[in-house]
């Protein structure tokens, strides 16, 4: 339960929040005046600089709930949550920068599903476009609702007003300015976010007495927790091994007896590794090292940074292939800083406020303790910046998928670029209305259950399989379209089956024990879904007919057409200078190159 602190915000705070909102919207509207074509709207006219894209990548990745939720998770489970920003981002971003992003950029596509059609077939494109659209559209409503709930709890604001105002403000500047407005406002939002969170980190460390004092207080807290765990563990009768680690296995009637004792042990054991990034395989927290290494670092992280339309789209709007690479490297550098300013404050809260009832109360309470009037407004602006920078990106990317992968493909193949701009804007308005409606729908459902958390889990199921077909398609020339489609569906089915078999009602009905023994084993779901998709794709491809040689241009190591990339072969990471779009003398000629690639590719594919 969060502590309502509406009284903490004073007039100077609201002035700071107002200045931030007005500056953001003014910038978005100013950029919108230059909007003339679909390329302007969806790819910023391919004029976006690397430094703005890099900051936009970071801002998009950190949602509104993350600003408070990551610190809360650090308070509850320790520093292991920082893995999601470190090994869960930096390696994938660097591999993306030097292998995948140049590859996507060179093909001149607008969306990942469009690339998959070039590599596989139209069926794969349509299924992936629908999957991404469903994911993004539902996520828009979930982000609005989750953030509104947090704003209502922390700042005492009206939940319905929060949903409406956020959606209309973000929808407004995204409608007017497209991707360029999204990227440039994200850049400001990234700066505000870093400033707001850095303030808490610095003032918190001063209050604690420095890094050394923080470490010794955490060590003392860990010793207390370890002792508490031992005491409770001895007091609690031993349970049968199958159910011992699942508190809910005791059932509703079991609460108050053994189950409560076990939860106390779990919480204490989880906190006993607060200052460590690497947790044992048998930890009860959601971050055991096998899940972090195999599920996050090797699968979910590359799936996000290489295969997520909302992320990749902004680098496709870069001024040149080199700047597209540079944006990812800059983003990776910034990512090194993020856990220090969003996770470490959670550890500071352990030292200053050790007896909070809930991790999510840590950061709001810390703000109340540390920040004077006016500076609290800066933190609220940081929260709003994180929220708006994620919503605007998903909004623009969903509109891009609807316009390019669905409207242009099924409604009007010969649509002009100007007409596509109107379609993109109309789609943006429709998606804003949908997101508001979906948020209210979830609010109604949520009276009975935490249904939106289940929605979010279900929607994450296709990311592992989607990454499998993208990765193998780019690296292996034998992968075929029909095999990719079947592999994608098998992977999604695997995720759903594992999720179902891990639900107490299902495994009890079958007389089974739970398959996974940690809380929220989503990292493990992604590993198995990825592996099933990969095995099915490779197996079926080997027994089916090889694909047409023209499609091998979209495989790393495959020969690319003269229009695509000059006459040389493309090796991993190596791009001969004469291949680069920006190398054609002037910047203007360089910008034209991807467009010509695009037309060539389309002509051949449709032939």
């Amino acid at each position, binding site marked *: 339960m969060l502590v309502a602190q509406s009284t903490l915000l004073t007039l100077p705070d609201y002035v700071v929040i107002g200045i931030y909102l007005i500056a953001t919207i003014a910038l978005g509207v100013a950029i919108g005046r230059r909007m003339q074509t679909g390329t302007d709207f969806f790819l910023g006219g391919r004029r976006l600089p690397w430094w703005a894209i890099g900051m936009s990548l970071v801002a998009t990745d950190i949602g509104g709930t993350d600003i408070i939720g990551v610190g809360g998770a650090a308070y509850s489970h320790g*520093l292991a949550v*920082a893995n999601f920003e*470190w*090994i869960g981002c*930096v*390696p994938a971003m*660097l*591999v993306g*920068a*030097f292998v995948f992003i140049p590859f996507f950029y060179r093909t001149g596509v607008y969306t990942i599903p469009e690339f998959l059609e070039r590599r596989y077939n139209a069926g794969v494109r349509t299924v992936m476009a629908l999957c991404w659209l469903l994911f993004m559209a539902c996520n828009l409503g979930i982000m609005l609702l989750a953030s509104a709930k947090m704003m209502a709890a922390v700042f005492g604001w009206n939940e319905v007003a929060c949903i409406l105002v956020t959606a209309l403000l973000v929808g407004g500047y995204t409608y007017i300015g497209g991707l360029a407005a999204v990227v440039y406002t994200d850049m400001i939002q990234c700066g505000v976010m870093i400033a707001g969170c850095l303030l808490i980190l610095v003032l918190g460390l001063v209050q604690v007495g420095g890094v050394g004092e923080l470490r010794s207080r955490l060590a003392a807290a860990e010793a207390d927790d370890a002792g508490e765990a031992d005491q409770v563990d001895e007091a609690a009768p031993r349970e049968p091994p199958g159910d011992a680690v699942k508190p809910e296995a005791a059932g509703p009637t079991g609460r108050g007896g053994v189950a409560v004792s076990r939860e106390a042990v779990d919480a204490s054991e989880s906190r006993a590794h607060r*200052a*460590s*990034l*690497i947790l*044992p*395989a*048998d930890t009860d927290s959601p971050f055991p*090292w*096998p899940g972090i*290494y195999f599920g996050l*670092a090797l699968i979910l992280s590359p799936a996000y940074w290489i295969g997520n339309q909302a992320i990749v789209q902004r680098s496709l709007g870069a001024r040149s292939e*080199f700047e597209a*690479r*540079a944006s990812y*490297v*800059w983003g*990776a*550098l910034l*990512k*090194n800083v993020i856990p220090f300013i969003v996770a470490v404050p959670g550890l500071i809260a352990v030292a200053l406020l050790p007896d909070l009832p809930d991790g999510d109360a840590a950061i709001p309470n810390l703000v109340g303790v540390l920040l004077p009037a006016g500076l609290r407004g800066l933190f609220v602006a940081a929260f709003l910046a994180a929220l708006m920078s994620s919503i605007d990106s998903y909004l623009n990317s969903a509109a891009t998928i609807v316009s390019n992968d669905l409207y242009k493909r099924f409604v009007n193949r010969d649509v002009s670029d100007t007409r596509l701009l109107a379609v993109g804007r109309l789609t943006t308005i429709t998606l804003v209305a949908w997101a508001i409606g979906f948020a209210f729908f979830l609010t109604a459902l949520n009276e009975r259950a935490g249904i939106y958390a289940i929605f979010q889990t279900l929607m994450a199921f296709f990311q592992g399989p989607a990454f499998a077909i993208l990765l193998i398609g780019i690296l292996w020339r034998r992968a075929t379209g029909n095999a990719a489609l079947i592999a994608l569906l098998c992977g999604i089915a695997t995720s759903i089956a594992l999720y179902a078999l891990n639900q107490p009602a299902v495994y009890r009905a079958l007389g*089974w*024990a739970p*398959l996974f*023994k940690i809380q929220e084993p989503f990292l493990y779901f992604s590993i198995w879904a990825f592996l099933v998709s990969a095995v099915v794709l490779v197996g079926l491809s080997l027994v089916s007919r090889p694909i047409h040689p023209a499609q091998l241009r979209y495989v790393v190591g495959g020969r690319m057409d003269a229009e695509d990339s000059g006459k040389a072969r493309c090796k991993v990471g190596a791009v001969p200078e004469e291949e680069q779009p920006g190398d054609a003398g002037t910047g203007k000629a360089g910008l034209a190159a991807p467009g010509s690639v695009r037309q060539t590719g389309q002509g051949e594919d449709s032939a």
Partner: protein
Amino acid sequence: MTPLHRWGELLRETLQAIPLGAVRALFVTTLVFLLIWILDENLKTGAVLAVAIQIVIYLVL
């Protein structure tokens, strides 16, 4: 216990038997391989710096 559960139990026991020191070495070795693969207008500068920071973080924390 289904065969799936038995197999899962075996996998779980195997992973739990790996000491955390070896796990830390696995994380750092992965990052070192990334650094070798990668090796102010040169993107190598930023990329090497980003991975070097990661290596220090995973050695210390």
